[in-house]
């Protein structure tokens, strides 16, 4: 029996590894999603001088679990007069598409060698990764538009209409803003791994080698800062987040396209939106901020920066232990020190095992950058007022699109003048 299992495993290693990787990525992303809601509520609360969730678990850390259980056990009524097939299809479509997008994101160039297999930290790495992401963005309009239409409610319909108009308009600016980066790459322009590795001058000059600054082996090319601003603005609009969250503007449309959705179907839209945020943050990291490259040069002198994960984890862990010991509730006194100790232990392990430390460097920088962008999302939501609908259309068509086209023209001009191609 064991022999048979071993044979089976070695013959189908690729499939087994891929399935395990998918399961693991889904688990991680869904957990990050859940805690992103906690993070968002906490940050927005502190921006507005409130405490945010703090009743369920210490510092409200179990709030996502409570919310999840609530979603699962709530009554799930189907409103009268809905188009049943489309009504059920829409949340499924939204969730499936946004989760599919994660399959092409590469997190680290270094494979994990386990049981004689090279396990890369991506699910698949196609040559057209960027185009796949764009096609998923193009299709993800349907989840929202169809939900609005199928609900048989005027608020939903208006939300759906708004979202489809908004997403079609901003998709143009989103795609055009990326072209500048594509012009700077030399080969394999659409492979996400290729796009990161094109910025490999970052190994010598640190963050100056990222596309946002634009120092390459051929000298300074055009900094993609304009491209990045256009990209991130239109990406916020594409993911329907504040200040562009008109499809669900609660003061005008109740809850917009998901007014008639309850319970887990609503949760599916929610998860889809947060996953889309993560995907966009990954894409911004890959295209403009050097992907997995550290902001410091990869030379002997800068080797101490490899300990940055430990330097952040160890003091933070100690602080969590200290904070836990003086927490008001018994539950907090028990749980927080354990969390703090785990952080401390991870930090200490990284110092003790240089091989592991080197392995996690790319992953650490990639996720760190992604979290910075996620913080940006929350920050924008906490500070910026929602645009009016005509302002939204003006920004998309009359500002972002011309500026991003101008960026393409400037970038190509600079590349030709410098004779880099």
């Amino acid at each position, binding site marked *: 029996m064991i022999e048979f299992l071993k044979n089976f495993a070695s013959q189908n290693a690729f499939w087994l590894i891929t399935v395990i990787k998918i399961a693991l990525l889904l688990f991680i992303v869904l957990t990050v999603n859940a805690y992103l809601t906690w993070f968002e509520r906490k940050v927005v609360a502190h921006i507005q001088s409130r405490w945010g969730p703090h009743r369920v678990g210490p510092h409200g850390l179990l709030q996502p679990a409570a919310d999840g259980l609530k979603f699962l056990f709530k009554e799930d009524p189907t409103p009268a007069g809905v188009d049943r097939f489309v009504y059920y299809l829409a949340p499924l479509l939204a969730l499936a598409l946004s989760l599919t997008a994660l399959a092409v994101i590469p997190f680290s160039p270094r494979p994990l060698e386990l049981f004689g297999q090279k396990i890369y930290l991506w699910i698949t790495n196609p040559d057209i990764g960027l185009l*796949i992401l764009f096609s998923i963005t193009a299709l993800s309009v349907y989840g929202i538009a169809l939900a609005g239409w199928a609900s048989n409610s005027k608020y939903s319909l208006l939300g759906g209409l708004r979202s489809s108009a908004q997403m079609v308009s901003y998709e143009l600016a989103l795609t055009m803003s990326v072209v500048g980066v594509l012009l700077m790459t030399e080969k394999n322009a659409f492979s996400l791994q290729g796009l990161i590795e094109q910025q490999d001058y970052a190994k010598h000059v640190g963050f100056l080698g990222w596309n946002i600054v634009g120092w390459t082996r051929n000298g300074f090319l055009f900094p993609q800062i304009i491209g990045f601003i256009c990209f991130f603005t239109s990406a916020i609009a594409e993911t329907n987040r504040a200040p562009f969250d008109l499809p669900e503007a609660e003061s005008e449309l109740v809850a917009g396209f998901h007014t008639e959705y309850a319970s887990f179907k609503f949760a599916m839209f929610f998860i889809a939106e947060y996953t889309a945020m993560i995907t966009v943050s990954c894409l911004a990291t890959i295209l403009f901020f050097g992907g997995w490259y550290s902001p410091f040069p990869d030379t002997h002198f800068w080797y101490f920066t490899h300990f940055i994960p430990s330097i952040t984890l160890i003091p933070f862990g100690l602080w969590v232990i200290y904070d836990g010991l003086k927490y008001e509730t018994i539950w907090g006194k028990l749980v927080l020190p354990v969390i703090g100790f785990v952080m401390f232990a991870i930090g200490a392990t990284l110092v003790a095992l240089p091989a592991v430390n080197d392995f996690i460097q790319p992953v650490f920088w990639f996720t760190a950058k992604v979290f910075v962008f996620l913080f940006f999302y929350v920050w924008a939501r906490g500070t910026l007022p929602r645009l009016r609908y005509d302002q939204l259309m003006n920004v998309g068509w009359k500002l972002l699109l011309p500026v991003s086209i101008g960026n393409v023209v400037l970038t190509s001009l600079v590349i030709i003048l410098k004779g880099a191609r």
Partner: protein
Amino acid sequence: MTPTLLIFFVLAGLAVLGALSLVIQKHPIHSALSLIVVMVCLAGLYLLMGAEFVAAVQIIVYGGAIMVLFIFVIMLLNAGEEERTDFSKLAKFAGLPLALALTAAIAAAVVKPAPDIPSQSVIPDATRLISSMLFQEFVYPFELTSFLILVAIMGALVLAQREKK
């Protein structure tokens, strides 16, 4: 049966089913959804032939932009279910024979041994080849086509403006 052939038959079957459903469905939104299924299946078929770029563009342009516009217009007009009228007499008598003739013509073309096109092998850097062909060799036809589209857009604008008075 190789996996490739299996995927081909699944995609081709779905595409045909989607096309049938497009005609049969009574509600315009359902028809549009069926058309999206057809578009996505076609993209899958292109992918199967190793044309990665064409597949992605198929989804982005046809599956995304154009079909979103369809759905947007249907939603905006709030079109209800179609009413079935009796089929026209011409369709009754001429339709079936003509459909049969068309099927026969296509079948005859397909049955003929096709020229041997190397398929399923991904051409490295195909996107670069496509773009250099589009922007160097065929730049004039390409620009002419975009000019045609521009004219069409302007025509639509003029027609829309006239009603405003």
